[in-house]
């Protein structure tokens, strides 16, 4: 194992809608023996709503600088945060003039470009490694999973860390913990959940999320697994609203990959926030042996 300590960037949803992702991430890393040091006084990464790249770079420079002071690489469980952190990191590393300019705006933006940014999935599979994780597994999570990756894991190419069309990192973890990947879901793995349009074109967002839920259901999944809180809000948080608005019943449990992994590591469900997912997760708990 090549990591034992990382700076942790939880992202805004960690405090509210995706609190269970935050809880399970912390619990899993603890169990795996990797210390997470929360980036002190971290600020929002800009999400998708700040469109001007220069503002995004500045916002993230601050978070990067804080982690850099501790000399730690940053890990985040949120795909959008990862995208913003990583593209800022790249831009800042490559562009000295930009770094100087930001430093001029405020000394807290003084980042030297010495650390790496990572998504939790990447850390699990590529840094900690499947063998290491496997050695710590205590239970078998015998569920049929539709692994849903969303947008920013395989896209855009320069920040991606998995295949753009058929990513596999989550699949590997699921198979490792005894789960089964449902067939006929591959082509939905990276189709956008509609989240970015939730507030402005809720109708489209609902249709898009529903499609993912439907394909997972038709594929025979017990649950969908995720690696991004925005996807979580759409597929889990809004699922009941979707059912109501589109007059359908779905009832598809949606969990974060960290929650599934936590179960396999023998962590107690409530510590993983499994009581906080909007769609009930009891059936899944029943399949942990």
């Amino acid at each position, binding site marked *: 194992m090549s990591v034992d300590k990382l700076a942790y960037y939880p992202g805004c949803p960690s405090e509210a809608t995706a609190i269970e992702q935050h809880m399970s991430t912390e619990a899993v890393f603890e169990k795996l023996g990797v210390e997470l040091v929360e980036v002190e006084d971290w600020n929002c990464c800009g999400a998708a709503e700040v*469109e001007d790249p220069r503002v995004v770079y500045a916002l993230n420079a*601050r978070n990067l600088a804080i982690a850099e002071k501790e000399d730690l690489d940053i890990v985040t469980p949120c795909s959008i945060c990862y995208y913003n952190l990583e593209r800022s990191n790249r831009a800042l590393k490559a562009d000295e003039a930009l770094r100087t300019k930001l430093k001029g705006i*405020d000394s807290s933006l003084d980042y030297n470009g010495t650390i790496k940014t990572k998504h939790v999935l990447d850390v699990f599979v590529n840094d900690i490694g499947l063998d290491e994780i496997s050695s710590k597994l205590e239970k078998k999570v015998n569920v049929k999973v539709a692994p849903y990756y969303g947008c920013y894991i395989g*896209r855009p190419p320069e920040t991606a860390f998995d295949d753009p069309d058929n990513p596999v990192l989550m699949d590997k973890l699921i198979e490792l913990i005894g789960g089964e990947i449902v067939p006929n879901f591959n082509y939905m793995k990276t189709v956008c959940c509609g989240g970015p349009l939730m507030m402005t074109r809720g109708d*489209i967002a609902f*249709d898009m999320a529903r499609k993912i839920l439907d394909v997972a259901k038709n594929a025979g999944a017990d649950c969908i697994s995720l690696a991004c809180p925005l996807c979580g809000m759409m597929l889990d948080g809004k699922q009941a609203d979707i059912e109501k608005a589109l007059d359908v019943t779905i009832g598809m449990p949606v969990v974060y990959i960290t929650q599934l992994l936590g179960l396999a590591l023998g962590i107690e469900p409530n510590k993983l926030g499994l009581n*906080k997912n909007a769609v009930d997760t009891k059936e899944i708990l029943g399949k942990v042996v």
Partner: protein
Amino acid sequence: MPIKTWELDPNFKNEIMSEAGGERLASCFQCSTCTLGCPITEFVPGYNPRKIIQMSLLGMREEVLSNPDLWVCLICQTCTARCPQDVRIADVLGALRRIAEREEEAGNLKIDSPRPLFDKAFQHQLKKFGRLYDMGLAMEYYPKKEGSFIKGMLAMMKDYKDFGMRMFLKGKMGPLGGGSPVKGMLASKIKQKDVMKKIFEELGEEGKEK
């Protein structure tokens, strides 16, 4: 009506290409890859990033900037990831949106979408608190979207009634939820809020206007 190129703005493509994200516009060879992979096309008939690009290249400035389709892009990056010519369509559309917002601010254009209002409210919250404050964002956005405070509150209630309660019950929002008793109800503020202000003032649209 035929398109008369001499009445168009041949400089429009250069304008886009000098905006961050728009640099690679001219490489496009109209192959349709972006459009055919775009998930929005299934829900918004006629949505066609390829066409927006050719219109931009031809210089159809007005038609492009007032096109409501600019505002339904998910920024999902599928088009960017697949574009054989590295046009970075998601970023190009972002550049177009920013030009359109500026034009609206200058009073030259009316944008037919609440999205700029939402983005602005988001940025405003961010500037104020340093983190996303769902409740504050909603309180700022809905009235603007609906045109009055009362209408806004009503619309917000409608959208949030069930969802809010669900989140509340799960302890994700509300007085006793989450890690702290007031999570989600009050803004979670960072200490160095002044830095946020500086960033937006120096680099954001406000900075540009200065």
